[in-house]
């Protein structure tokens, strides 16, 4: 099952977990599966049309899905998704 890595700034929305196992054949389906598990995360992460907000990037195996096929990017069982938000601390 693909895994979705969650960085610390967003972990409070997924019960503090660093990684969530997700089902889905595409990046978009995996994201939906994660949001179905943690519905309170949805308004923070997604716009009304369901796409991720622009301050968050989703990478599949180190490559931004924007540079692949977006939410239609195919996903295999060994793939790792990274959710990377903007952080500002300094």
């Amino acid at each position, binding site marked *: 099952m693909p895994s979705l890595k969650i960085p610390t700034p967003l972990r*409070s929305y997924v019960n503090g977990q660093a990684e969530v196992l997700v089902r889905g054949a595409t990046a978009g389906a995996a994201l939906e599966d994660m949001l179905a598990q943690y519905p309170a995360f949805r308004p923070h992460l997604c716009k009304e049309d369901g796409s991720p907000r622009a301050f968050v990037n989703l990478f599949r195996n*180190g490559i*931004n899905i924007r540079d692949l096929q977006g939410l239609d990017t195919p996903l295999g069982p060994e793939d790792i998704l990274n959710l990377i*938000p*903007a952080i*500002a601390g*300094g």
Partner: protein
Amino acid sequence: MLPELSREEILRYSRHLLVPEVGLNGQRKLKGSSALIIGSGGLGSPVALYLAAAGVGHIGLVDYDVVEESNLQRQIVHGTGMVGRLKVDSARTRLLDLNPAIQVDAFNESFTSANAMRIAEPFDIIIDGTDNFPTRYLTNDLCVLTDKPNVYGAIHRFEGQASVFYAREGPCYRCLFPEPPPPGLVPSCAEAGVLGILPGTIGTIQATEAIKFLLGIGSSLSGRLLLYDALDMSFEYVKLKKNPECKVCGAHPEVTALIDYNEFCGVPGLEHEEGPEGREWDITARELSAQLKRGKPLRLIDVREPHELAISHIKGAENIPLGELAGALSKLDPSQEIVLFCKKGSRSRRGLELLASAGFKNVKNLRGGINAWAMEVDRSLPIY
């Protein structure tokens, strides 16, 4: 013409001169180069120290703030004796003690659209060591518009990011993050805390990238984003590409001059923690104390994280962390007066906005949070 090194400088930089990738010419390049460091805090401290030690001939420091006790756990350019002094003066004193042969310019001002071009103009490279989104977007756009490299670093608790954004050869910050997060979604260091060493690690990486750029050696982080996790001690990289539709460095840019970055990021000003003063929903610590003494029935809700209660707490307050407030609305009585508080008033202000949007009308925010309570009402409590 590169500047010559004096006898003293040859001795000082001898370990650099022995490295073939630096050598005498490289050290002369560093002496003739300049770097502007935005922010003299957690990231700015190690960057400034290492660039000064390395012999970058001209360093600029921008910060409007003063040194506070709570900075010293991570902002290593400052010392205890500098508490209360301007950060740029404190840092300049330390850098000139470390290396008297360099020039250090201190800009004791907020970095804004009005002054950024003037301040940055003489510098070869810009290092982003700020702590807020408006200044990060400002720094990015400035670098794109003036064709300067932006050495980026950002931190949160145990995690850090670093990259080099140089639009001439790769993506810029906006290519990666076209828009900032909604205000309040990503907490600041002052709210969330940060491992003191973390900015040391990320700032040192920024200093390394700056020195490599100035020397013209190695392969930079341009086109890559470094993700560091101190808890796992892991370094990961993801690839970054230029976004052809980027609003500042894309083929058809919309941003052709510096804009109002506070408005762009939806924040009223720089990320200060204190709540807005004079708002009708604010209550001061003294007013709250007087009301409690009179026996006024009110519900006092502490929206901090549970581990913060061990530092200080107000008797009679119940703890509902901000992240759980939305799920606890059904347990609150809209007809009862509610006073929210946190550490300094920022999180409780967001809690208040949440309650107000849910129809609660009788809600107040303790201005300055429990720290104000510790200063004005209960001096036995620590301030943090």
